[in-house]
Protein backbone atom coordinates (compact mmCIF):
# COMPACT_ATOMS: atom_id res chain seq x y z
CA UNK A 1 0.00 0.00 0.00
CA UNK A 2 1.25 3.49 -0.86
CA UNK A 3 2.41 5.55 2.08
CA UNK A 4 1.88 9.27 2.33
CA UNK A 5 5.11 10.98 3.37
CA UNK A 6 6.33 14.32 4.62
CA UNK A 7 7.27 16.29 1.48
CA UNK A 8 9.94 18.51 3.01
CA UNK A 9 13.65 18.20 2.32
CA UNK A 10 15.54 15.69 4.42
CA UNK A 11 12.46 14.36 6.20
CA UNK A 12 10.42 11.75 4.32
CA UNK A 13 8.60 10.73 7.52
CA UNK A 14 5.97 8.09 6.83
CA UNK A 15 2.63 9.61 7.84
CA UNK A 16 -0.12 7.15 6.93
CA UNK A 17 -1.28 4.72 4.25
CA UNK A 18 -2.99 6.25 1.24
CA UNK A 19 -6.54 5.01 0.83
CA UNK A 20 -8.68 6.15 -2.08
CA UNK A 21 -11.88 5.60 -0.11
CA UNK A 22 -10.99 8.34 2.37
CA UNK A 23 -10.66 11.06 -0.22
CA UNK A 24 -12.78 14.22 -0.17
CA UNK A 25 -12.43 17.43 -2.20
CA UNK A 26 -12.72 20.87 -0.63
CA UNK A 27 -12.78 24.26 -2.38
CA UNK A 28 -9.23 25.39 -3.23
CA UNK A 29 -9.42 28.47 -0.95
CA UNK A 30 -9.10 26.07 1.99
CA UNK A 31 -5.27 26.30 1.87
CA UNK A 32 -5.13 30.03 2.48
CA UNK A 33 -8.03 30.14 4.88
CA UNK A 34 -6.60 27.42 7.11
CA UNK A 35 -2.95 28.47 6.53
CA UNK A 36 -1.95 24.99 5.39
CA UNK A 37 1.62 24.32 4.25
CA UNK A 38 2.32 23.22 0.68
CA UNK A 39 5.70 21.79 -0.40
CA UNK A 40 6.15 24.61 -2.95
CA UNK A 41 4.37 27.56 -4.51
CA UNK A 42 3.85 25.46 -7.62
CA UNK A 43 2.14 22.64 -5.75
CA UNK A 44 -1.24 21.92 -7.36
CA UNK A 45 -4.11 23.12 -5.19
CA UNK A 46 -6.33 20.12 -5.80
CA UNK A 47 -8.40 20.60 -2.66
CA UNK A 48 -8.00 16.88 -1.95
CA UNK A 49 -8.00 15.66 1.64
CA UNK A 50 -8.04 12.28 3.34
CA UNK A 51 -10.54 11.86 6.18
CA UNK A 52 -9.44 9.88 9.24
CA UNK A 53 -11.97 9.36 11.99
CA UNK A 54 -9.38 7.83 14.32
CA UNK A 55 -6.07 9.56 15.02
CA UNK A 56 -4.54 6.10 15.64
CA UNK A 57 -4.82 5.43 11.92
CA UNK A 58 -1.71 7.58 11.52
CA UNK A 59 1.74 5.99 11.71
CA UNK A 60 3.56 9.22 12.53
CA UNK A 61 1.82 12.51 13.21
CA UNK A 62 2.12 15.54 15.48
CA UNK A 63 -1.03 17.13 16.90
CA UNK A 64 -1.00 20.74 18.09
CA UNK A 65 -2.79 21.98 21.18
CA UNK A 66 -6.23 23.51 20.85
CA UNK A 67 -6.12 26.37 18.35
CA UNK A 68 -6.61 29.56 20.42
CA UNK A 69 -9.69 31.66 19.75
CA UNK A 70 -7.84 34.51 18.05
CA UNK A 71 -6.22 32.22 15.47
CA UNK A 72 -9.38 30.22 15.14
CA UNK A 73 -11.29 33.45 14.43
CA UNK A 74 -8.95 34.11 11.51
CA UNK A 75 -9.78 30.66 10.19
CA UNK A 76 -13.45 31.12 10.86
CA UNK A 77 -14.22 32.20 7.31
CA UNK A 78 -13.10 28.71 6.31
CA UNK A 79 -16.21 27.42 7.99
CA UNK A 80 -19.07 26.67 5.69
CA UNK A 81 -16.69 25.22 3.10
CA UNK A 82 -18.68 22.40 1.55
CA UNK A 83 -17.64 18.90 0.58
CA UNK A 84 -19.08 15.45 0.02
CA UNK A 85 -18.10 12.54 2.23
CA UNK A 86 -19.58 9.04 2.11
CA UNK A 87 -21.91 10.41 -0.56
CA UNK A 88 -23.39 12.93 1.86
CA UNK A 89 -22.99 16.73 2.01
CA UNK A 90 -20.90 18.19 4.82
CA UNK A 91 -19.55 21.60 5.81
CA UNK A 92 -16.40 22.41 7.77
CA UNK A 93 -17.06 23.54 11.33
CA UNK A 94 -14.82 24.65 14.17
CA UNK A 95 -11.06 24.30 13.63
CA UNK A 96 -9.68 22.51 16.68
CA UNK A 97 -6.06 21.49 16.15
CA UNK A 98 -3.38 21.37 13.48
CA UNK A 99 -1.60 18.26 12.21
CA UNK A 100 2.16 18.55 11.67
CA UNK A 101 4.95 16.18 10.70
CA UNK A 102 5.94 14.06 13.73
CA UNK A 103 9.61 14.09 12.75
CA UNK A 104 10.47 17.55 11.38
CA UNK A 105 7.53 19.48 12.89
CA UNK A 106 6.78 21.19 9.58
CA UNK A 107 3.25 21.94 8.60
CA UNK A 108 0.39 22.34 9.04
CA UNK A 109 -0.24 19.30 6.88
CA UNK A 110 -3.84 19.07 7.96
CA UNK A 111 -6.38 19.85 10.63
CA UNK A 112 -8.48 18.32 13.37
CA UNK A 113 -11.84 19.86 12.71
CA UNK A 114 -15.53 19.64 13.43
CA UNK A 115 -17.67 18.84 10.44
CA UNK A 116 -21.43 19.22 10.16
CA UNK A 117 -23.83 17.12 8.17
CA UNK A 118 -26.98 18.45 6.50
CA UNK A 119 -28.94 18.10 9.76
CA UNK A 120 -26.27 20.07 11.64
CA UNK A 121 -24.98 17.02 13.56
CA UNK A 122 -21.32 17.56 14.51
CA UNK A 123 -18.43 15.18 14.59
CA UNK A 124 -14.69 15.66 14.83
CA UNK A 125 -12.42 14.23 12.14
CA UNK A 126 -8.77 14.46 11.10
CA UNK A 127 -8.26 15.92 7.63
CA UNK A 128 -4.88 15.37 5.98
CA UNK A 129 -4.15 17.69 3.05
CA UNK A 130 -3.04 15.50 0.14
CA UNK A 131 -1.47 18.48 -1.64
CA UNK A 132 0.72 18.97 1.45
CA UNK A 133 2.23 15.45 1.44
CA UNK A 134 3.97 13.09 -1.00
CA UNK A 135 2.35 9.92 -2.24
Amino acid sequence: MTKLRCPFAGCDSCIVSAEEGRKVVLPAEVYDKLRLALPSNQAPRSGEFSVFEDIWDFDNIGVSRQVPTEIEAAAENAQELRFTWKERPYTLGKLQKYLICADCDRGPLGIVCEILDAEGARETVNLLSLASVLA
Partner: protein
Amino acid sequence: MSGVRTVSSSSANAKSYDSIMKILLVGDSGVGKSCLLVRFVEDKFSPSFITTIGIDFKIKTVDINGKKVKLQLWDTAGQERFRTITTAYYRGAMGIILVYDVTDERTFSNIKQWFSTVNQHANDEAQLLLVGNKSDMDTRAVSTDQGEALAKELGIPFVEASAKDDTNVNDIFFLLAKLIQEKIDSEKLVGNTGRDGSVNVGAAGNNSKSNCC
Protein backbone atom coordinates in the same frame (compact mmCIF):
# COMPACT_ATOMS: atom_id res chain seq x y z
CA MET B 1 -6.90 16.42 28.52
CA SER B 2 -8.09 16.68 24.99
CA GLY B 3 -7.18 14.63 21.98
CA VAL B 4 -7.29 10.89 22.00
CA ARG B 5 -8.83 9.40 25.09
CA THR B 6 -9.57 5.88 24.16
CA VAL B 7 -9.13 3.69 21.18
CA SER B 8 -12.49 3.22 19.63
CA SER B 9 -13.42 -0.43 19.43
CA SER B 10 -15.03 0.19 16.06
CA SER B 11 -11.62 0.53 14.50
CA ALA B 12 -10.42 -2.76 15.94
CA ASN B 13 -11.46 -4.83 12.96
CA ALA B 14 -9.25 -2.84 10.60
CA LYS B 15 -6.61 -1.56 12.95
CA SER B 16 -3.27 -0.54 11.61
CA TYR B 17 -1.20 -1.60 14.64
CA ASP B 18 -0.57 -4.47 17.04
CA SER B 19 -0.52 -2.39 20.19
CA ILE B 20 -0.52 1.17 21.42
CA MET B 21 1.36 2.74 24.32
CA LYS B 22 0.83 6.06 26.04
CA ILE B 23 4.15 7.52 27.11
CA LEU B 24 4.67 10.60 29.29
CA LEU B 25 7.59 12.92 29.80
CA VAL B 26 7.93 14.39 33.30
CA GLY B 27 10.57 16.48 35.06
CA ASP B 28 11.29 20.08 36.09
CA SER B 29 10.68 22.99 33.75
CA GLY B 30 13.62 23.69 31.48
CA VAL B 31 15.10 20.19 31.40
CA GLY B 32 14.24 19.94 27.71
CA LYS B 33 11.25 17.61 27.80
CA SER B 34 9.64 19.44 24.93
CA CYS B 35 12.89 19.23 22.97
CA LEU B 36 12.72 15.47 23.24
CA LEU B 37 9.25 15.64 21.77
CA VAL B 38 9.67 18.52 19.35
CA ARG B 39 12.92 19.02 17.50
CA PHE B 40 15.66 21.23 18.84
CA VAL B 41 14.92 24.90 18.34
CA GLU B 42 17.66 25.51 15.76
CA ASP B 43 16.29 23.15 13.18
CA LYS B 44 12.65 23.77 13.77
CA PHE B 45 10.64 24.49 10.68
CA SER B 46 7.20 25.06 12.12
CA PRO B 47 5.65 28.37 11.24
CA SER B 48 5.52 30.67 14.26
CA PHE B 49 1.78 30.27 14.78
CA ILE B 50 2.24 26.52 15.27
CA THR B 51 5.11 27.12 17.69
CA THR B 52 2.86 29.51 19.61
CA ILE B 53 0.02 27.00 19.82
CA GLY B 54 2.42 24.23 20.89
CA ILE B 55 2.30 20.47 20.49
CA ASP B 56 -0.29 18.43 22.35
CA PHE B 57 1.07 14.98 21.54
CA LYS B 58 2.75 12.95 18.83
CA ILE B 59 2.10 9.49 17.49
CA LYS B 60 5.16 7.54 16.41
CA THR B 61 5.20 4.00 15.08
CA VAL B 62 8.02 1.61 15.89
CA ASP B 63 8.66 -1.98 14.96
CA ILE B 64 9.38 -4.19 17.97
CA ASN B 65 10.16 -7.82 17.21
CA GLY B 66 7.98 -7.64 14.12
CA LYS B 67 5.10 -6.01 15.99
CA LYS B 68 3.84 -2.63 14.87
CA VAL B 69 3.62 -0.55 18.02
CA LYS B 70 2.15 2.95 18.06
CA LEU B 71 3.47 5.29 20.72
CA GLN B 72 1.55 8.31 21.87
CA LEU B 73 3.99 10.77 23.39
CA TRP B 74 2.83 13.47 25.78
CA ASP B 75 4.62 16.42 27.33
CA THR B 76 3.27 18.13 30.45
CA ALA B 77 2.88 21.45 28.62
CA GLY B 78 4.54 23.42 31.41
CA GLN B 79 1.97 22.42 34.02
CA GLU B 80 4.79 21.18 36.26
CA ARG B 81 5.59 24.81 37.08
CA PHE B 82 2.38 24.99 39.04
CA ARG B 83 2.52 21.42 40.36
CA THR B 84 -0.87 20.93 38.80
CA ILE B 85 -0.20 17.81 36.78
CA THR B 86 -3.40 15.95 37.30
CA THR B 87 -4.03 12.29 37.82
CA ALA B 88 -5.76 12.39 34.43
CA TYR B 89 -2.41 13.05 32.81
CA TYR B 90 -1.00 9.84 34.28
CA ARG B 91 -4.08 7.74 33.56
CA GLY B 92 -3.38 4.90 31.18
CA ALA B 93 0.31 5.74 30.88
CA MET B 94 2.35 2.62 30.15
CA GLY B 95 5.69 4.37 30.08
CA ILE B 96 6.99 7.40 31.95
CA ILE B 97 10.25 9.15 31.17
CA LEU B 98 11.76 11.04 34.12
CA VAL B 99 13.91 13.78 32.63
CA TYR B 100 16.62 15.89 34.27
CA ASP B 101 19.17 18.30 32.84
CA VAL B 102 22.80 17.15 33.29
CA THR B 103 23.87 20.81 33.47
CA ASP B 104 21.49 21.61 36.33
CA GLU B 105 22.05 19.78 39.65
CA ARG B 106 18.71 20.97 41.05
CA THR B 107 16.70 19.17 38.34
CA PHE B 108 18.65 16.00 39.20
CA SER B 109 17.93 16.19 42.92
CA ASN B 110 14.25 16.78 42.16
CA ILE B 111 14.01 13.43 40.36
CA LYS B 112 13.26 11.63 43.64
CA GLN B 113 10.30 13.96 44.13
CA TRP B 114 9.10 13.20 40.60
CA PHE B 115 9.61 9.49 41.24
CA SER B 116 7.32 9.58 44.27
CA THR B 117 4.73 11.73 42.44
CA VAL B 118 4.71 9.26 39.58
CA ASN B 119 4.36 6.32 41.95
CA GLN B 120 1.48 8.08 43.63
CA HIS B 121 -0.50 8.79 40.45
CA ALA B 122 0.55 6.34 37.80
CA ASN B 123 -0.42 2.75 37.25
CA ASP B 124 1.84 0.36 39.22
CA GLU B 125 2.62 -1.47 36.00
CA ALA B 126 4.01 1.62 34.25
CA GLN B 127 7.58 1.21 33.01
CA LEU B 128 9.85 4.07 34.12
CA LEU B 129 13.02 5.33 32.46
CA LEU B 130 15.50 7.91 33.79
CA VAL B 131 16.93 10.27 31.17
CA GLY B 132 19.79 12.73 31.69
CA ASN B 133 19.20 15.29 28.96
CA LYS B 134 21.53 17.83 27.28
CA SER B 135 24.49 15.43 27.52
CA ASP B 136 26.12 17.31 24.61
CA MET B 137 26.64 20.43 26.76
CA ASP B 138 30.09 21.38 28.12
CA THR B 139 28.66 22.73 31.36
CA ARG B 140 27.83 19.34 32.85
CA ALA B 141 27.03 19.37 36.59
CA VAL B 142 25.77 15.79 37.00
CA SER B 143 28.08 12.93 35.99
CA THR B 144 26.99 9.81 34.15
CA ASP B 145 28.00 7.80 37.26
CA GLN B 146 25.65 9.87 39.41
CA GLY B 147 22.82 9.21 36.97
CA GLU B 148 23.55 5.49 36.98
CA ALA B 149 23.70 5.38 40.77
CA LEU B 150 20.33 7.11 41.11
CA ALA B 151 18.74 4.82 38.53
CA LYS B 152 20.06 1.81 40.48
CA GLU B 153 18.68 3.21 43.70
CA LEU B 154 15.24 3.75 42.12
CA GLY B 155 15.43 0.40 40.32
CA ILE B 156 14.81 1.83 36.85
CA PRO B 157 16.87 1.90 33.62
CA PHE B 158 18.92 4.94 32.66
CA VAL B 159 20.21 6.65 29.51
CA GLU B 160 21.71 9.99 28.65
CA ALA B 161 20.37 11.97 25.73
CA SER B 162 20.88 15.02 23.65
CA ALA B 163 17.86 16.47 21.94
CA LYS B 164 20.27 17.84 19.35
CA ASP B 165 20.74 14.32 18.08
CA ASP B 166 17.49 13.03 16.67
CA THR B 167 18.62 9.44 16.45
CA ASN B 168 19.40 9.40 20.13
CA VAL B 169 15.95 10.77 20.98
CA ASN B 170 14.20 8.16 18.84
CA ASP B 171 16.38 5.52 20.53
CA ILE B 172 14.95 6.52 23.90
CA PHE B 173 11.37 6.07 22.79
CA PHE B 174 12.27 2.80 21.12
CA LEU B 175 14.08 1.52 24.23
CA LEU B 176 11.12 2.35 26.46
CA ALA B 177 8.63 0.78 24.05
CA LYS B 178 10.78 -2.35 23.92
CA LEU B 179 10.88 -2.58 27.73
CA ILE B 180 7.09 -2.18 27.89
CA GLN B 181 6.54 -4.80 25.18
CA GLU B 182 8.82 -7.27 26.98
CA LYS B 183 6.89 -6.65 30.19
CA ILE B 184 3.56 -7.24 28.40
CA ASP B 185 4.87 -10.41 26.76
CA SER B 186 6.24 -11.85 30.00
CA GLU B 187 3.03 -11.07 31.87
CA LYS B 188 1.00 -12.63 29.10
CA LEU B 189 3.13 -15.73 29.45
CA VAL B 190 2.67 -15.91 33.21
CA GLY B 191 -1.05 -15.10 32.95
CA ASN B 192 -1.75 -17.78 30.40
CA THR B 193 0.22 -20.40 32.28
CA GLY B 194 -1.69 -19.57 35.43
CA ARG B 195 -5.09 -19.88 33.85
CA ASP B 196 -5.04 -23.03 31.82
CA GLY B 197 -1.64 -24.49 32.46
CA SER B 198 -0.48 -24.14 28.89
CA VAL B 199 1.80 -21.47 27.60
CA ASN B 200 0.18 -19.58 24.79
CA VAL B 201 2.83 -17.45 23.18
CA GLY B 202 1.67 -14.86 20.71
CA ALA B 203 -2.03 -15.60 21.14
CA ALA B 204 -2.77 -11.90 21.07
CA GLY B 205 -0.94 -11.39 17.83
CA ASN B 206 -2.83 -10.91 14.61
CA ASN B 207 -2.06 -11.08 10.95
CA SER B 208 -1.43 -7.43 10.29
CA LYS B 209 2.05 -7.03 8.95
CA SER B 210 4.40 -4.38 10.15
CA ASN B 211 5.08 -2.49 6.99
CA CYS B 212 5.73 1.05 8.06
CA CYS B 213 8.72 2.63 6.41
